[in-house]
């Protein structure tokens, strides 16, 4: 099997034809020569390579997505049981249940994101590669985003079934997507931070959940509004909060990620 990474557009296509012989071509072995990077295309290729590597590893090892999904389904079921007797109307609790399950199940996947690299010492291999550290962040970010979205693709129908509510509505799905982007942006960075601390797995939720409060509130309010049959004008502020959150934290994460891996 030739893996798909090798099918990526070779850099050659964008580059000018080789020009006059360089000084060092005559004595090729003598020195390490600096080379300016592959530009944006090269950067994106590496982001994709890292994300694809994580996705492929997940297909084989089933460490993060699979545990996330198993946890999510269990959690929805347990919430259904917990509220079955005393809550007359599922609409009252479904928004909260949905977002609690999203937040808590996400922790499992995020922990594995850098935890797997730290456990096997492979982080050094990524850091040795000639690429900006932020490419590592974005590669991990996209892999985690895919895991989360797939996870949510099961949480939503599960909530629909257990609570018998039409939760698959356009703006709820948009809200879940926007919230997930912010969640994964912050979560990926915090996972990288927590991977270097002693109590890694238990540290992440303590770090992450208080910072996720705005996304959580916006998500719950949005979902409740949509379920109540309100119109877009009434709940669009929640979408904007998520958009602002996403923009702020993706930018800051990009800016500070370089600082995390100064040394391993």
């Amino acid at each position, binding site marked *: 099997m030739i893996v798909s*990474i*090798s099918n990526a557009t070779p850099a050659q296509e964008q580059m000018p034809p080789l020009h006059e012989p360089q000084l060092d*071509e005559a004595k*090729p072995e003598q020195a390490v020569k600096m080379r300016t990077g*592959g530009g944006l295309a090269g950067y994106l290729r590496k982001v994709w390579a890292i994300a694809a590597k994580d996705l492929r*590893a997940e297909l084989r090892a089933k460490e993060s997505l699979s545990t996330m999904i198993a946890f999510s389904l269990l959690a929805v079921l347990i919430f259904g049981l917990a509220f079955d007797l005393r809550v007359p109307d599922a609409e009252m609790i479904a928004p909260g249940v949905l977002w609690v399950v999203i937040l808590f199940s996400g922790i499992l996947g995020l922990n594995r994101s850098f935890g797997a690299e730290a456990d096997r010492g492979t982080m*050094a291999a990524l850091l040795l*590669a000639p690429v900006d550290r932020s490419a590592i962040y974005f590669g991990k970010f996209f892999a985690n985003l895919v895991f989360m979205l797939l996870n949510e693709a099961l949480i939503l129908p599960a909530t629909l079934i257990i609570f018998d509510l039409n939760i698959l509505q356009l703006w709820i799905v948009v809200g879940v997507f926007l919230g997930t982007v912010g969640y994964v942006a912050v979560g990926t960075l915090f996972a990288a931070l927590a991977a270097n601390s002693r109590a890694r797995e238990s540290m992440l939720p303590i770090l992450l959940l208080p910072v996720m409060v705005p996304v959580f509130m916006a998500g719950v309010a949005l979902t409740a509004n949509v379920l109540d049959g309100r119109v877009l004008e009434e709940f669009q502020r929640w979408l904007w909060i998520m958009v602002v959150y996403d923009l702020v934290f993706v930018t800051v994460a990009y800016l500070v990620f370089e600082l995390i891996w100064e040394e391993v």
Partner: protein
Amino acid sequence: MTPHKITATNVMAEVQANELVAEPVNVPTSSPPLIQVNRLYKRYGRKNVLRGIEMSVGAGQVMAILGDNGAGKSTLLRIISGIAKADRGEIVLGGVSLKAAGHELRRYIGLVSHAPLLYDSLSAEENLAFFAAMYDLEEPSARIAGVLRDVDLWTRRRDPVRTYSRGMIQRLAIGRAILHNPPVLLLDEPDTGLDQESAQMLQNLIRTLGAENRAILLSTHNLDRAVEWADSVSLLVGGKIAYEETTAKLSGVQLRKVYAQLYAEASESA
């Protein structure tokens, strides 16, 4: 598919072909040593691991670093490779300072560390394909096939690394380090866990690679191997280089004597 032969001309040709923007930094005409370490200090918590290391390895040279466990061999190699930071001092690779160069200089470094730096749920081929992408290799499949043959894993290339023996993992780790044909090769105890056959293969590989004007720095516990494999040996005692000699004038027996003596002196003075 022609088996890929590693030559130094290939290294630069590949590098040349990879150039997107041809802006070579001034290459000094008199060739500087590929690895130059200037007064390197490193402290880990309470321990002074390195205390003023000075060394240089020229092109075509294989140098072995020796020392007890915890003498700082791994730390030194990690700092040269750029994944750890020194407290003081400077690493200059081929005349370019590691600190000033930014991430593109990492292209010229290959590292075999204690951890194999491989993803064990992926196959050998997938691992190398991933790293080929990270290093922007042109025509990766040909190069990967070449490396897999060089380290004798071609027949097992599609099995996940998880199923490999210790020796096979170590060979693949070496394959990973030489995949992008780096002129600077750092091998941290590459011979641990290798059976006789694999060790022989590694020796041949080091000899070929070294002959192609690379600078190879390897650490080992095996003094006989150091004499046999390297052009020169450096003995690390108490965070300093206590002894340096070319292997042409040295036998394993002599080296052992020096080693024992220096460490005895060190423990006396401590």
